[in-house]
């Protein structure tokens, strides 16, 4: 699945997009666990619950199942307008 990072999240991941596929990742919670392990500096932000998650361009709050074709985005609170 394709993971995209925006705004200051990118400064932590040093990466604006990457492909992550693992048999251990079948849902959003498992993906979050994987990403925190890969980028420990993100943990405090996940814990503070300020980050937002989108799957295929829709905001997702609950722990939905993920498919290898999905595009998942992780980003801080928005500031458009």
């Amino acid at each position: 699945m394709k993971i995209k990072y925006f705004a200051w999240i990118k400064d932590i991941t040093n990466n604006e997009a990457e492909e992550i596929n693992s048999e251990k990742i079948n849902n959003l919670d498992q993906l979050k666990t994987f990403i925190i392990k890969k980028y420990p500096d993100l943990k405090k932000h996940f814990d503070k619950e300020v980050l937002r998650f989108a799957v295929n361009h829709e905001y997702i709050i609950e722990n939905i199942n993920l498919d290898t074709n999905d595009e998942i985005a992780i980003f801080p609170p928005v500031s458009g307008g």
Partner: protein
Amino acid sequence: MIKIQKEDFNSEEEINKIKILYPNLGAITSFTGYVRNKNNNKKVESIHLEVYEAMAYKQFEKIINKANLKWDLIDCLIIHRYGKLNVNSKIVLVSCFSAHRKDSFESCNFIMDYLKKDAPFWKNEFYSKKNKWLANSN
């Protein structure tokens, strides 16, 4: 009509292109947001607006659909810029087209509320020596 672009735009021209299609239209309410020269008591030099473009289009469509359920709208226009924007630059235009004033006013305000909450844009504000990512407060 939804446009996400780097370029500046002429509001009069963009609005007229839509207005001219609807002779029964009596009311247009428009909101334009600009880059200010100061924010939180700091002197701003420019902003960099990052966008998640595919998601922004989808979220704008959803917001317009919600507005259409609540008000009698003839059409809606959203233009949102991204990239480097200097002080005095337009950031966003939201125009709501209707027969009567109330529908255009209320829907324009509603769309701006949702845009501020849900549209995936991020402002990186540049001061003379540093920069800071912002979050919308309202």
